[in-house]
């Protein structure tokens, strides 16, 4: 089967974490084995609806993320499908060894759901803005890593991972961002989605950067550059074929993510290209740095994570062909 082609239409702005909340609420109605855990961030994770409808299937852990990961692992023994909720920083770095031993190595069916990922967490600053979580999670054997691009895709991903048997890291964000994928989409883990066809450059983006990539492709088109935009929502397992097929046509690639370029999507793509088809690549990502306080838009601008930065990277990578 070839790559999934989608058209896209901007409708409104919504936060991806609300997509998670909506997906979880739907799971509460349709899958009696789904349980949810939260470490004192119900409102931030948008878990209210699930809790209201299924109070007996919700576990308020308190501010104790390590305990939450262990309890989630234990709940799988007995057939439950636990979804843990806290910020991305506290879902990964703070509890890495708990996830590694009690969940990943133990092969437990836990869904680690992480909001406020990346720099768009904004004003709280670097203590809360994790830019290393994709790297941490993708290194764990057997861990699936997903970073959806908008509200609808996050909702669909949330529902899809309940059907998958195994540990998953689901990453989403805080700010309201454009909704542009269909509400009725089917989410396929590990399957890239292509939004535009192009011949001059491949742009592979994940999370909040997908919309920026689409905006960049429009501007580039006006400048006579034909860009193929591919949404990699699943960083692991990576859709190698979609990437290789596209660069076979375009001959160069830009990767775009709200994450450190060390350990992120870009490095995963670089590995695939190095193994199969060495190709010029530019990285739109943070460059081995912590974030800082500011509005999401200011931060995306300052750290080079927007349409303008993608356009610049495209021109640079085309010149390297």
């Amino acid at each position, binding site marked *: 089967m070839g790559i999934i082609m989608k058209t896209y239409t901007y409708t409104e702005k919504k936060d991806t974490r609300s997509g998670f909340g909506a997906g979880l609420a739907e799971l509460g109605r349709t899958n009696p084995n789904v349980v949810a855990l939260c470490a004192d961030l119900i409102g931030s994770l948008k878990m209210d609806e699930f809790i209201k409808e299924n109070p007996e299937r919700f576990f308020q852990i308190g501010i104790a993320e390590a305990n939450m990961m262990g309890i989630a692992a*234990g709940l799988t*023994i007995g*057939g439950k499908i636990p979804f843990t909720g806290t910020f991305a920083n506290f879902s990964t770095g703070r509890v890495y060894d708990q996830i590694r*031993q009690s969940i990943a190595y*133990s092969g437990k069916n836990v869904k680690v759901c992480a909001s406020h990922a990346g720099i768009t967490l904004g004003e709280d600053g670097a203590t809360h803005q994790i830019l290393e979580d994709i790297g941490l999670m993708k290194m764990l054997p057997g861990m699936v890593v997903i970073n959806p691009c908008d509200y609808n895709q996050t909702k669909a991903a949330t529902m899809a991972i309940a059907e998958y048997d195994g540990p998953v890291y689901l990453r989403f964000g805080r700010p309201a961002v454009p909704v542009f994928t269909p509400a009725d989409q089917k989410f396929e883990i590990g399957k890239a989605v292509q939004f535009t066809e192009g011949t001059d450059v491949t742009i592979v983006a994940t999370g909040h950067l997908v919309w920026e990539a689409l905006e960049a492709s429009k501007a580039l088109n006006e400048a006579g550059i034909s860009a193929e935009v591919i949404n990699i929502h699943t960083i692991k397992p990576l859709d190698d074929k979609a990437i290789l097929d596209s660069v076979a046509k375009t001959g160069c690639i830009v990767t775009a993510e709200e994450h450190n370029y060390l350990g992120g999507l870009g490095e995963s793509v670089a590995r695939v290209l190095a193994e199969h088809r060495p190709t010029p690549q530019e990285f739109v990502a943070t460059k081995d740095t912590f974030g800082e306080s500011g509005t999401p838009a200011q931060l995306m601008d300052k750290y080079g994570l927007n349409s303008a930065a993608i356009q610049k990277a495209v021109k640079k990578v085309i010149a390297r062909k």
Partner: protein
Amino acid sequence: MPNIKELNDLTTQVRRDILRMVHKVNSGHPGGSLGCAEFFVSLYNDILETKDGFDMDGIGEDLFFLSNGHISPVYYSVLARAGYFPVEELNTFRLIDSRLQGHPTTHEGLPGIRIASGSLGQGMSVAIGAAQAKKLNNDDHLVYSLHGDGELQEGQNWEAIMYASAKKVDNLISTIDLNQQQIDGSTDDVLPMGSLRAKFEAFGWTVLEIEEGNNVEAVLKGMKDAKALTGQGKPVCVLLHTVMGHGVDFMMHTHAWHGKAPNDEQLENGLAQNPETLGDY
């Protein structure tokens, strides 16, 4: 009432298994394993209500989680001799391609194991989760866990201890192996923990102590008392007083044999103190 002589004979055989396993590969943790032989034998031969065979979900049976995974030798020996896997497989302990990894894991599919442990401090949280799943499933069986006393220095335990009482996880019996030793010395030398009874009680647990943790009859009585205390709104903590290295005189009362294997001569000496009962593997 179980036959105490049979359980004592099994305990002696388990001690031989432990010594032979760690000697063969010149690695592993005999001290804590020997100290917990009576506990494991009692648990798996009289306390736990288990189904035939093994499935991961463990619905309709009691569950046990070992948090201090380094005492895998005693766990493996008792599981094998309870029929979870062939006793001969003890020969593969810590060898390449074995299901009997240095620390217990679900990864190789060894029957009897439901969680990986080794990195300390994680088992109580897992046991709590399993206990809460039992409540959701209307399964009135119990969840047991074992933890080292030194292991309680890991902070995650105290998150779990606080949670279990707050959420009335009263189908959980967590036993602390109170041998007062850890790798670098006695727990009092390394990091004194004060009164564990006072700490657990302050955190809202029901606490009972088994003063003779290396006496099968005392362990059976204590664990049955603990069982009777479940279902009353509080988790139950058993402080199990044991002697590290129990049953091998030169390994007793010291941290020196926490993670060291006996040489040939020491093995012979240790085995002579624990004559074969049920047959070596």
